[in-house]
């Protein structure tokens, strides 16, 4: 399926990309994170197990087990620090 990816804040700067289209072979958030980790470099480093990041699907934060749908808007970002 095709996913519309967005990256914010520190992760946007580390990855060097604000948005991109990704073709996912799997079906869940975990599958997506694994596929991005497999790019190596900063992707493997920032998305490694134990690192703190959030994933939102269609603008709602979800758990790693969440299922994805074609053309979903997926955002990956650090824990929030507003207020």
């Amino acid at each position, binding site marked *: 399926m095709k996913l519309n990816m967005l990256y914010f*804040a520190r992760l946007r700067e580390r990855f060097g990309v604000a948005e991109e289209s990704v073709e996912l072979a799997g079906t869940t958030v975990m599958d997506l994170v694994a596929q991005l980790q497999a790019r190596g470099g900063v992707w493997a480093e920032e998305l490694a197990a134990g690192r703190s990041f959030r994933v939102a699907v269609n603008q709602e934060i979800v758990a790693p087990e969440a299922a994805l749908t074609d053309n979903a808007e997926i955002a990956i970002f*650090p824990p929030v620090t*507003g*207020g």
Partner: protein
Amino acid sequence: MKIVVQAEVFDLGAEVNAMRQGRTDIGAVASFVGLARDMNEGSGVQAMTLEHYPGMTEKALAALIDEANVRWTLLDVTVIHRVGRLLPGDSIVLVAVASSHRGEAFAACEFIMDALKTRAPFWKKEETAEGERWVDARASDDTAVARWAK
């Protein structure tokens, strides 16, 4: 209910007056204003830039105000959060809650602020003498919001 994300400064008095305008059922308005400090993590902060996730930010703020409305009987809520570059002393966020009685207004104002700190997609980047740095999320913010778990 009013939710605004803006670069411009806001006026607490004007916002509270707007909530009260033409109403006589409001017995209490509790408000909170968060400000940019000149010090964080032991070093001086010269400025900060606030980034957010347009679309999700407004949805997340609406969701936590909905939760506050379930827990307390509220008459009106205003949340304004600024984005862009801010200097020490600048206002960052305003939460104002109107209710019939002070207890509900105080509690809901604190709940909304605690929930905002951990759930609304804003990020701060500070400018210091040593360069720029992204602010890390604080464990104390998780502790603060956990107090409200039923």
